[in-house]
C-alpha cells in the first residue's frame, strides 16, 4: 500500500453546468479516504492539464452529462503533449455506446454510466491510482 492516498481531480470540461454527479462522486471518494481536487464546471482543457500537473494527481475524473465527453479525446491529446499521459482518466455520465468506444480508444481507462455504484467507482479509482503510481515509479 502506498504511503499517501490516491490524489484525484474531479472536474467538468466543455459547456454543461450539471454538477450533481461530479459532486456526489467527489464527496464519496473523499469520504473513502482519497485526496480530492474539485473545480466548478466549464474548465478549459489547458486549465485541467495545468492543474493536474501542479497538483500531481494520479487520476482525473471527467463528469459529462450533455455531450461534453465529445472533447475528451482533445484532453487526452493535451495531456500526452504536456508529458502527463501517464495520468489515469475516467469519464462518468451520459455517454452513448457508440461514443464509449471512441473514448476508450483515445486512452480513457473506463467510462461509468448512470447506475454505476459509488463503491464500484471508488474501487476502480483506487486500483487505477495504484497502477499509475507504479508506472510513475518505474519510469523515474
Amino acid at each position: 500500500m502506498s504511503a499517501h492516498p490516491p490524489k484525484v481531480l474531479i472536474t467538468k470540461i466543455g459547456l454543461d453546468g450539471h454538477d450533481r454527479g461530479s459532486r456526489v462522486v467527489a464527496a464519496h471518494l473523499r469520504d473513502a479516504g482519497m485526496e480530492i481536487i474539485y473545480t466548478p464546471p466549464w474548465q478549459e482543457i489547458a486549465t485541467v492539464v495545468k492543474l493536474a500537473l501542479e497538483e500531481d494527481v494520479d487520476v482525473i475524473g471527467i463528469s459529462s452529462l450533455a455531450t461534453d465527453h465529445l472533447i475528451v479525446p482533445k484532453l487526452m491529446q493535451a495531456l500526452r503533449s504536456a508529458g502527463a499521459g501517464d495520468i489515469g482518466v475516467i469519464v462518468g455520465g451520459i455517454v452513448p455506446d457508440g461514443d464509449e468506444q471512441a473514448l476508450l480508444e483515445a486512452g480513457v481507462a473506463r467510462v461509468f454510466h448512470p447506475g454505476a455504484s459509488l463503491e464500484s467507482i471508488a474501487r476502480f479509482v483506487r486500483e487505477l491510482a495504484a497502477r499509475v503510481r507504479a508506472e510513475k515509479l518505474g519510469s523515474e
Partner: protein
Amino acid sequence: MKSYSDPDFSPDFDAQRRRWEEEYAGRIGAGERDPINRSGIAVKPLYTPADWDGAAYAERLGFPGQPPFARGIYATMHRGQAWAQRQLIGLGTPEDYNARLRGLLAQGTSAISLLPCNSVFRGYDMDQVHEELLGTCGVVVNTWQHLDRCLEGVDLAGISTALNDPSPFTLLAFLLAVAKRRRVPWEAIAGTANQSDYLSHFVANHMFYRLALPGARRMLIDTIEYTQRQVPKWNPLSVVGQHMQQAGATPAEAMAFALASAVQYAEDCIARGMDPDAFLPRFTFFFDVSISFFEEIAKFRAARRIWARIARERFGATDPRAWRFKFHAQTSGADLTREQPLNNIVRVAVQSMAGIFGGLQSLHTDSYDEALSCPTAEAARIAVNTQNILREEAHLTEVIDPLGGAYYLESLTDQMQGRIEAIMAEVEAAGGMYRAAEQGIVQKRIGLSARAFQARVERGGQTVVGVNAYRAEEEAGARRALERPDPARMRGHLEAFCRWKRSRSRDAVERALDELARAANDPKRNLFDQVAAAAQADCTHGEICSTLRRELGFGEPLAEV
C-alpha cells in the same frame, strides 16, 4: 335501515379501527418501520378520518379557483382547458429546429419551447467554442435572424412561446426584434422566460449566461419592469424548483427554495417601487415531477396554499390573479435509467399523472432515451403521445382535483406544507434566498440530499428497476439512441455566421455595445432597453453577454463538495 347486531358488522369507528390495528399488527409484526418518503415524511399503512376528517374543508381546500387554491387555481381547471403540451426541443441549426417544431405542432403540441445550445447557455457565440459541441444539446441561436429561422411559418401572435433564456434575456430581445420585423405588435407576444430565475442557476445545474449575482439581479428586475410596460402578455419570470430537485434536493426542499426565491424576487420588485398586483400575476413556476407519486401531488397542492397566503398577506396583493400559483412541470430525468430504457416510458407516464393530479398548467414529458443522449424523433413522439393518451384515452381531464379529499393525500398535503414552510423559515433566517445562495447554504443542503438519495439506492430503501433490482442482460450497442446534428450543416451554419458578422455594419454594432456598457454603469437606466436595442442593431448573443459580464462581473458558482 336494518341495525346490525353482529359486532363484526358494527358501524362503530373506534371498534373497527381497533380490530384493524390488531389484525394488521398480527400479520405484519411489531418490527415494521414506516417507509420514509423523499421529503422525510413517514408514511403510515392506512389513513382514515382520524387523519383528515373534512371538517376543515372550507379552510384547507375550498373550491377550485378560490383561496386557498388547494384544488386548483382556476374554476374550470383541466375540464375547461387541458394543460398546455409544451415540449422542450432544441437541436442543431435553426432549420433543424424549425423542422422538429413543425412536426410536433402537427402532432398536437400546443406551445413552443426553445432550448438553446449549451454554447448559448454559457453566453458564447458559436465561433468561440469547440465545434464538436455545437448544437448537440440545443439549437444554436446567436442572432435575431437565427431565431427568425427557428420560428419560420409560426404565427408569433397565435402561440405561447417559452424561451430558455437566462439573464440578460438576449433570446427575448431577439424575439422582439423578429416580431418587429414581421410587424407583429409586441402586445400580442405571449410566453415565458423559462430560465429567468438566476438564483436557481447559481445554486444548481448552472445553466446560465454566467452573469455574476448582482448583475443578474438587476437585469431580472429591469426586464420585469420592461415587459410590464412593453410586452404585457410576457411572463418575464419563471421561478425554477426543477434545477434544485434535479440536482438532488428533496421535493419539499425544491419547493421551499423555489418559493423562497419567488419571495426574494417579489421583495426586489417592491423595492423598485412596483405594484404586487401588477407584477405577481406574471410570476410563473417550473418544477420537476418525480415518480414519488403522492408526494409530488401533495407538493403542488401545498404550494398553491402557501403562495396564495404569501401573495395576499405578505405582499398585500388584492387582485386574485396575483394569488395564483401557475406552474409548468417537467417529468424528472433523474428518475430515468440507462438500463432497459423502454421502462422509462412507464416512469414518464406515472410522473405525468402526478403532475396532472397536482394541477399543472403545462407539461413537458421527457423522452425515454434522455439517459442515453439527446432525444431522437421517435422518442420525442412517444413523449408527446404519452400526454395525448393520458388526456384523451385515460380521461384524466374530466374531474377537477380527482384525488382531493382522500385521507392520505390531504394528510400528506398538510405535512408537506409543514415541511416546506419549515425550510422556507430557515432560508428566511439566513437573510432570504439571495443571501442564502451567496453563502452556499442552499448548495450544501442540496448536495447532502443528493448523497442521501444515492445511499438509499445503493444500500437499500429505494428500488430502481433495472439498476439495483430486476436487472437483465442487454445486448452491447442496444442503447443505440443517438441524435446528433449533421456536421456539414452545422459547419455551414458556422461559416455563414462568420461571413454575416463581417458583412454587418460594424459602426452600428459598436455604438450599440458602447451604449449597453454605459447603461450597465448607470443604475437609473433600464438595462433591458439597451439589450433589446443591441439585438435589433445586429449585435450577437456573445457580444451582448460579454459586454455585460465585463461591466457587471463574471458569474462563477461556488465549488463545494
